[in-house]
């Protein structure tokens, strides 16, 4: 990153002037903190004693045998506290907010995972917490809202626009504009104005650093390929960045959704609607129409349907250092079932995209090659979506009975 937070033509800061000084304050505080060995140690220690790091690298004997190709490993971010890699970032930024003397954090959330993670860290650090969430997302992802409330967070429904993540992000920016004195804006992925992309990717890089150590220890070299799903891009940045420049091939997997038609997917690469743009504080590839209006997105996994993507990944892709591919909703459900049934690991639907990408290619590789798939989160949270996708009747009956008893 250069001084302006640019990554090639992407990144940068395109924020209302009102946020200038708070962003400057953040930039300075972040640089200071990164130069403070004690702070780095604090982040590391909290990642360990609170979130349970390091997360393991798990060998998949059964799938490897079934496919007969590359040796398949999983990087288990699902074992983090809160059940996803999101924790790494909120720990880092939460401690930074505390160090800056802020008493309140705000966050935007789509699926709710980052909202829960933020609420957790706020409870842990004694900070107030407000989470902006699209009203539509709140309806679809209420269990996460429930947990945020239990954790003491205030969840604000955002009703503008499509009432989803993009709108929640706009609203969080608006809150920050008028509250930055005591409030820290805790962005959940490697997007937004500088220094967020760099900062989030940095806190997430612990994932890739661990993979370096673990792969060397477990199979004597770096992986040949690494797969990660790409929503905003934080788990991908986290596992990829430490390997940029190495021989490991880095593959990002986007939400292919239902089709290539506008609104049916969230592919910020390789589609007509994906073009350079500047919005929500930064430059990157956005899904947009000819007028530059950002487009609705779709994915079976709520966490991948973001309209933009990390400027870091946009740049790495342009440089040929990261290869971007995608997996459709249907492929994702297949990959979900395979991993669950044959390895006993229940991936988040987001992560199942990476699984789909990895398994698709593993078969064509040779047994002396090794791939690592980022399991960014666990699938428990997706029970409502999965049960629906699988048309599981007893689940419906269970809910009906529950509601009946409720009303007694």
């Amino acid at each position, binding site marked *: 990153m250069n001084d302006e937070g640019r990554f090639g033509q992407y990144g940068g800061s395109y*924020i*209302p002037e009102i946020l200038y000084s708070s962003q400057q304050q953040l930039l300075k505080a972040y640089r200071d903190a990164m130069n403070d060995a004690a702070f780095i140690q604090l982040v590391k220690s909290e990642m360990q004693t609170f979130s349970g790091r390091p997360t393991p690298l798990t060998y998949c004997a059964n799938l490897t045998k079934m496919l007969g190709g590359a040796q398949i490993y999983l990087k288990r971010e699902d074992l983090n506290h809160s059940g996803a890699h999101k924790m790494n970032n909120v720990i880092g930024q939460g401690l930074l907010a505390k160090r800056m003397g802020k008493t309140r954090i705000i966050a935007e959330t789509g699926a709710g995972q980052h909202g829960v993670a933020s609420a957790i860290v706020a409870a842990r650090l004694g900070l107030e917490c407000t989470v902006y969430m699209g009203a539509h997302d709140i309806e679809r992802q209420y269990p996460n809202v429930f947990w945020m409330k239990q954790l003491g967070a205030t969840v604000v429904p955002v009703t503008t626009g499509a009432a989803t993540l993009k709108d929640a992000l706009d609203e969080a920016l*608006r809150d920050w504009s008028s509250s930055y004195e005591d409030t820290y804006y805790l962005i959940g992925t490697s997007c937004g104005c500088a220094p967020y992309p760099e900062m989030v990717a940095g806190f997430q890089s612990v994932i890739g650093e661990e993979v370096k150590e673990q792969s060397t220890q477990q199979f004597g070299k770096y992986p040949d390929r690494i797969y990660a799903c790409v929503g905003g891009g934080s788990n991908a940045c986290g596992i990829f960045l430490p390997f940029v420049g190495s021989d490991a091939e880095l593959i990002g997997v986007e939400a292919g959704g239902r089709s290539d038609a506008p609104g049916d997917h969230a592919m910020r690469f390789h589609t007509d609607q994906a073009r350079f743009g500047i919005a929500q504080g930064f430059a990157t590839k956005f899904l947009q129409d000819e007028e*530059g209006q950002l487009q609705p997105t779709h994915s079976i996994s709520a966490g991948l349907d973001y309209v933009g993507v990390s400027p870091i990944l946009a740049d790495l892709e342009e440089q040929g250092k990261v290869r971007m591919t995608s997996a459709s909703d249907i492929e994702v459900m297949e990959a979900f079932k395979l991993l669950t049934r044959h390895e006993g690991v229940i991936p988040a639907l987001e992560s199942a995209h990476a699984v789909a990408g990895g398994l698709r290619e593993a078969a064509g590789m040779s047994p002396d090659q090794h791939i690592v798939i980022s399991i960014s989160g666990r699938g428990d949270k997706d029970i409502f979506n999965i049960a629906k996708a699988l048309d599981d009747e007893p689940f419906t009956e269970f809910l009906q009975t529950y509601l009946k008893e409720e009303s007694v």
Partner: protein
Amino acid sequence: MNKLTSFIQNQRQNKPLLLMTHVVYGYPTIEKSLEIMQLMLDNGVEILEVQFPFSDPVADGPTITNACHHALEQNPKLTQCLQDIKKLARQYPQSRVLLMSYLNPLLQPGFTSLAQQMGEDISGIIIPDLSIDHHAMLDPLSNSGIAPIWLITPDMKADRIRKVTEQAQGMLYCVSRSGVTGQKSTDQLSTNQLSTAPKASALENMQGYLNNVRQFTSLPLAVGFGINTAEDISALKGHADVAIVGSAFLNAFNKGGLEAVARKLSELQA
């Protein structure tokens, strides 16, 4: 001197404060929004700010954001918008028309094409998600005499204000401390740094802010503080050159259509 600057200074000869009103192109429909603009210009509004809607207007509050989202359902095109408002500008030579939008829609034609399309008739441009640090991006516009109108905020440090005033043309857009449009000025102030200040001292504070900016520049100062009432406006007299009213008209329109807008206008122009 920039044409917008001289227009304002001329107007100010015999008016203590000019009125700049805001309309979202395409809200509730393209036709209707043009009618609202016309109404305002008919009533002698000196400056008309036309917002070309963007899907993600992060610097706007709920009223304008909602209007933008509704407007987008009309599928507005920037090119058409420019043609429509240039026509208006030509019809009302005694007023000035400004374009407001976010970066991304403007990037589609690019600023060179934009400068051409805006031509002589659109006097300035406001881009709330572009900061002074990127002023070079707008060179094609300023080279064509179209004023990039930069924003000033209450907590800007002196060197930052200087950076802006060094580049500024046309006028300066001084916003309230609250980052987004359409917030009640006093509410906003009182929930922020002036939390214990009564309304009177909130006003004093605002006047101090403008007087401070004045020390850096001789450009006209336009002020948007969530201005809603004649009272709000009269408090600005002597401290600013232009009062910007945005959400108040949208709210009026939403309640009572064109007539309510006309009533609001006459209330504020009283």
